[in-house]
Every structure is written in C-alpha cells, then in structure tokens.
C-alpha cells in the first residue's frame, strides 16, 4: 500500500501544475453560452498544442498515451486550479475513445484530429423523451436507402447540440430484433436540413442542452461505428468511458467547494460568533469532509483495481452516486448557512457570494440524474456488484 505518488508521477504532476499555472486563461467570461464556448475552443486549442488534449488516447492517434494514474493526476490538477473545460468535452471523453475502440481506419483518420483540436464539437444522441434510463427501448429509426441511412426520431438532453458538428447517434435499425440487438451506432452530421435543435431551459435559467429532431436526416453507411446491430455494445463502451473519466476531476472540484464552504461559514455571523463556531454546522462540515475523503480514497482503490484488471468495474457507480449526494448536501448546507439571505440570486445587491451558492444548489439537482440516475446506479450496484437478482 502506498498512497503517495511515485517520483515519476510526482514529476508528471509538477509538469502539469506548472503548465497549467503558466497557461491558465483565467475564469470563463460571465456572458452568454456563445462567448463561453468560444473561450473554451481557444482553451482547447492551447491544450492540444501542448499535448494535453486527449491525454488518455494512444499516441498513434494524437493523444498522450498517459497512464490511468497520470490521467487522474491531470484531471485532479486541472480541477484544483479551476481550469476551464475544453469545448469538446464529449468528443474527447467519449467520441474519440469509441472511434479508437470500434472505428475503421478511415473513421480514425477522418474524425480524431478535429476532436482533439476542438474544431469539430461532438454531442451524444442517446436519450429520448420516452427512453431515459431504459435506453435500449429507444425508437429513433434508421432505414437503409442505398449506401445511406434515413433517420427519423427525436433525442433529448443533448448537451451542446447547438454547437455540434457530429452526433454520436444510437438508432434502431432492426425493429424486429430484441431491443438490445436492433440498435446501431452512427456518426451523424448535425449540419443538414433534416436535423433541428431546440434549446431546453434548465431550472438554473441556462440552456446547456437541447432537444434534437431528425426528419429524414441522412447518414452514409460509412458512418456506422462497430457494425450494424452492435449499437448497444458500442454505446456501453461510451458510457464506461464517461464514468471512468469523471471521478478525479470531480473530487478536486468538491475539495475546492469545501474550501469555499468553510470560508462562507467563517464569514457568516451567527450568535455573536460565526457559523464556523456553530456545533451543528461544524458537525455537518466535518461529515462532508469525511465523505469527500472516503470518495477520494475509494477512487484510488478503484484506480488500483482498474490498473490491475485493465477495465473499470461496476464499482465506479458507487463514486458517481456518492459524488451526487455530496455535491447536493454541500450546496444545501451553504444555503442553510446563508440563512435568510439564501433567497437572493445572482444580480441581487445583497446576494451572498454573488449568488454563487444559489446557482450551485440549483445546478446540483441534476447531479443525481445526469450520466445515470442514482436510482439506476443503485440497480447496477445491486445486480452487478452484489449479484442480487434482476427485477426485469
């Protein structure tokens, strides 16, 4: 057992740390999403030029070929320094790895480079209005027409669809096959007449994600990934990649939030002292720190296991569940500490911390839904970790 970094890992961390310090572009502009995306594109290009985009990707595909521990170090350090997200998060974390794992040589040659540079943004067309957690029941159809497929249907919760060039689309190609077997994974060009996007406004008032409508949209046969009828397997790889990449960045982010929470507590007057003197708040703050620490250590244990076996196990679901719980608890506690003033939002003169916690409180409601609901994660844990019988 050794919870410290090896000398070469430390060297890597120092290199990451120094590069980020020197190149950090500062906080994202407080402006509309268009400005934010432009900012993130510029940042991604900078990352790419220095070899930090796609660090988990093999070198032959333009990545860094970093080890899992190096990926963890990079994610942790980037979050610690609150570096902005790259513009093409989904392409880097999911699209690229899927093309690398399942794509043809032509696909690799065509798609990977613009993912890394951020020139082409990717989005994910999985969920549908009637197929959320039960993803395999999805109904968007793709019908073969010569060397093309004609796609009709609707996707939802499609993050950054409005900026995307490519959509990782899962559609039903065989309506008669059992539900998991009739699906195919396509790369759909979003810039065509048959594709319409409509932003969905979130409870925060922002619009990160969209509804996407396909009306006889076209995909060439050459854009099938992993073979017709294998869409489910290919999609599952994508989701595993999404979860494996989340943990370490998320932990640093929460550690930063905990620091801000302590600051809020020690600056909020309460009963002649501050909220940081209040035994109730102290207990809750301590409990959050303990849980974040268990999450961090779980992630290290998971990483050790993954490095030994080569594939992330279903235990990753524990971390995602825990992350959502902690993030929600943390923002709820911040609002409790703010007390009466917790009703004031961004833009209000008397809002505490510029209304940052109100935004986080609202945004974190999605944490137990996005990327697999906590309820579904508990099913996965029950079935795949504990071996309990399936209800279905």
């Amino acid at each position, binding site marked *: 057992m*050794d919870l410290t*970094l090896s000398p070469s890992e430390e060297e890597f961390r120092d290199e990451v740390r120094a590069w980020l310090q020197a190149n950090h572009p500062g906080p994202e502009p407080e402006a509309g999403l268009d400005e934010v995306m432009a900012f993130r594109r510029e940042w991604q290009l900078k990352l790419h030029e220095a070899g930090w985009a796609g660090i988990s990707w093999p070198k032959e595909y333009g990545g860094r070929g970093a080890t899992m521990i190096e990926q963890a170090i990079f994610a942790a350090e980037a979050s610690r320094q609150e570096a902005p997200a790259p513009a093409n998060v989904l392409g880097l974390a999911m699209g690229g790895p899927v093309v690398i794992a399942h794509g043809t040589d032509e696909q690799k040659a065509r798609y990977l480079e613009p993912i890394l540079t951020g020139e082409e943004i990717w989005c994910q067309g999985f969920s549908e209005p009637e197929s959320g957690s039960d993803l395999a029941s999805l109904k968007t159809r793709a019908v073969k027409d010569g060397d093309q497929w004609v796609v009709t249907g609707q996707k939802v919760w499609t993050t950054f669809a409005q900026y995307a060039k490519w959509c990782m689309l899962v559609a039903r190609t065989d309506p008669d096959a059992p539900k998991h077997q009739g699906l195919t994974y396509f790369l759909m060009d979003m810039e065509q007449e048959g594709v319409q996007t409509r932003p969905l406004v979130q409870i925060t008032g922002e619009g990160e994600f969209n509804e996407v409508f396909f009306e006889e949209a076209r995909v060439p046969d050459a854009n099938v990934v992993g073979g017709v009828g294998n869409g489910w397997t290919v999609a599952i790889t994508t989701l595993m990649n999404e979860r494996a990449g989340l943990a370490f960045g998320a932990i640093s982010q929460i550690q930063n939030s905990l620091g801000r929470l302590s600051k809020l507590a020690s600056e909020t007057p309460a009963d002649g002292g501050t909220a940081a003197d209040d035994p109730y708040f102290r207990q809750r703050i301590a409990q959050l*720190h*303990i849980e974040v620490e268990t999450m961090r250590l779980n992630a290290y244990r998971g990483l050790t296991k993954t490095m030994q076996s080569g594939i992330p196990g279903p235990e990753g679901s*524990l971390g995602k569940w825990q992350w959502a719980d902690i993030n929600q608890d943390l923002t709820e506690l911040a609002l409790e500490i703010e007390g009466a003033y917790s009703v004031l939002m961004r833009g209000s003169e008397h809002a505490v911390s510029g209304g940052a916690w109100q935004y986080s409180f609202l945004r974190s409601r999605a944490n137990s839904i996005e990327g697999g609901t906590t309820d579904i994660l508990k099913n996965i844990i*029950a079935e795949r970790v504990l071996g309990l*019988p399936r209800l279905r």
Partner: protein
Amino acid sequence: MYFDLTDEQQAIKSTAHDFLASRFKSERIREIAAGESGFDERGWKEMAELGWAGLALPEEWGGQGLGTVDLAVLFEEMGYALAPSPLLSNTIAGLALSIGGSDEQKERWLRPLAEGELRATPALIDADGPAEPMKFSMAAGDTLSGEKTLVMDAGSADLFLVATADGGRHVVEKDAGGVTVTAEEGIDLTRRLFTVRFDGVTPAATLPGSGEDYTPVFHRACVALAAESTGVAQRALEMSVAYAKDRQQFGRPIGAYQAVSHRCAQMLLETENSRSAVYGAAWAADAEPESLPLAASMAKAYASDAGWRVPDMAIQVHGGIGFTWEHDLHFFLKRGRANAAMLGDAKWHRERVADAVLAGETAPASA
C-alpha cells in the same frame, strides 16, 4: 500510488479469515457470550501462537514488528468473525507500553504480553470523569485511588495500564492489594466491560512516557477499532445479500425488489467508505504520521456510524427473523453500537475533524 493490500497482507487476511471462521462458529460465539467470564482461553492461546498478540509490537520485544495496515487487516477480520477476544485491549496496552515504557519495563511486561503469556488492558475512563478520550481525573501519586470504568476485558487481564490526570500510565497488577474488578452488563455480549476500583493501590511501575506519547497510540487504537467495525459491517452486508437472494415473497427473491436491493446498495456504500477511511488512516499511521490525527478521526467517525447502521439495515432486510435472539445479527448490531461509543464517538471525532479542516488542514497524501 498503489491502494491495495500487499501479498503478505493478503496472506494475513486469508489466514485470519480461515482460522476465525473455523474457531468462531455461531454456536461457539454464543457459548462464550453466555459464559461467566466471556473469555475464551483456547482461542486466546491459538491467536497467540499465530503471533497476533504482538502483531504490531516491536520485534525486539517479541512482537511481529508489523504496521498499522497489517493491524487493520487483522481487526477487520476479527470484526467480521465477531471473535470474542481480549486482542484489542491487549494490543492497545502493548502499544502504550512499547512507546512509554523503559527497557526494563518492556522486558518485564511487554515481552510476555507480545508473546501472549500475559494479558493487559488500558484502564482509562474515570467513573467520576467526563468519559472523553485522553482526559483523565485520577490523581497520580505513589498510590492510586478511584474508579476506572468501561474497562475492556478486565476479567481476564493480568495487568492494567492505568491513566492519570497528568497523562501518565501506571502498571497495576491484578493481584495487587486494593484492586476490585466488577463486571458491567454491556450491550455487547462478545466484549465484556468492567469497572475496576483502586483503593490506595501501589502501582508496580509508572511508565516514564508523558501524556503526549500516548496520542499516536490512541489514534492507532481508533484505526484498529474502526477496522473492526468495518468487518462487522461487511459481515452484516454479506448476510443480507445472501438472505435477499434466498428469501422468496410474492413469487420472487426479495433482493429483486428495489426497496430491498437499494438498501443493500446503501450498505455496500457505507461499508466500502468505511474500509477506505480505515486503510487510508492505517497507511497514514505508518507512512505519514503527521496526518494520522485527522485521518484517524475521519475513520473512527465514519466507521462508528457504519458499524451499527449497516447491521441495523441488515435487520430490516431480514425482517422478523432478524429481530430474534436465534439469529446472529443482533450480536453484530450490538458490537457495532458498542464500538461506536468507544474511543470517542462519531460526534467527538467529527468535532476534531471540524477543528482541523476549518483551520485549513488537508487530508493525507493529496495528489
């Protein structure tokens, strides 16, 4: 970075697991729990032969010289098996002796203790005091007077390590004049608690160590106890999963229902968190002692809760049968609940954590 047991630690784990499973079957635990003394002479001898009495004590004094991670491995298995044994009290007393004792004292008491020939237990909590960790009211002096309570395994101990207000520790032999040992009725039948009365007792020795010397002993004891609670939780989880697969209602195993399966998932989460906190702290004890106080308090706070909450959830999964004396679960609930209160409860440890984190300390080995 490598967060897993080494091959040697795996070997300790599987040896302990197999030995304890063969010696402490339900009937045997019940026999010991129902017995007058609560002490299992044969089991103790075998544990001593395995080298467990001195597992984390220095080799030069007859111990195995292993670290806190190894100790956590052993105590996790002790909790899993719910083995009634004075191993924990003996280990804590041994650690204190090895840190605070003179060479002569170590030769006289620590060596036989590490070899399992002698059993010792710390006598810490003053009956008239605040029952708070590391705060004692008994006056130090040529003789000791007063009542120490919640003393583990005093019935089978040969000597007591008595803490006094100045933070010192004194060796008192059981048969010294003026020592009276009275058994308490504890919630946990698998670990007996006693009140020990000292009436003008002359200690056999006073250790030269100061109060501060024993702080790391306290923290390592917290880690061992938290490891034990993790084992308790692990066993309760496994019992529940097995039962939920087997028990049929409405034509299906109850584990297929989310009300049950999600409860089991919660039990897994708490057990795994507890385990991570314990091994993180155990590692800190050996490799990064400056972060041990925070890590140990985190581990003890978390495992205090999980150690009884998980068996509690297990009872709910089992339904009526889980509430019967006939089923073993209540022993696990009781051990977990008793552990939660010992060596500082969750609230006490969280307050230590609050102190540290609000002052800007960070958890160990942050990459």
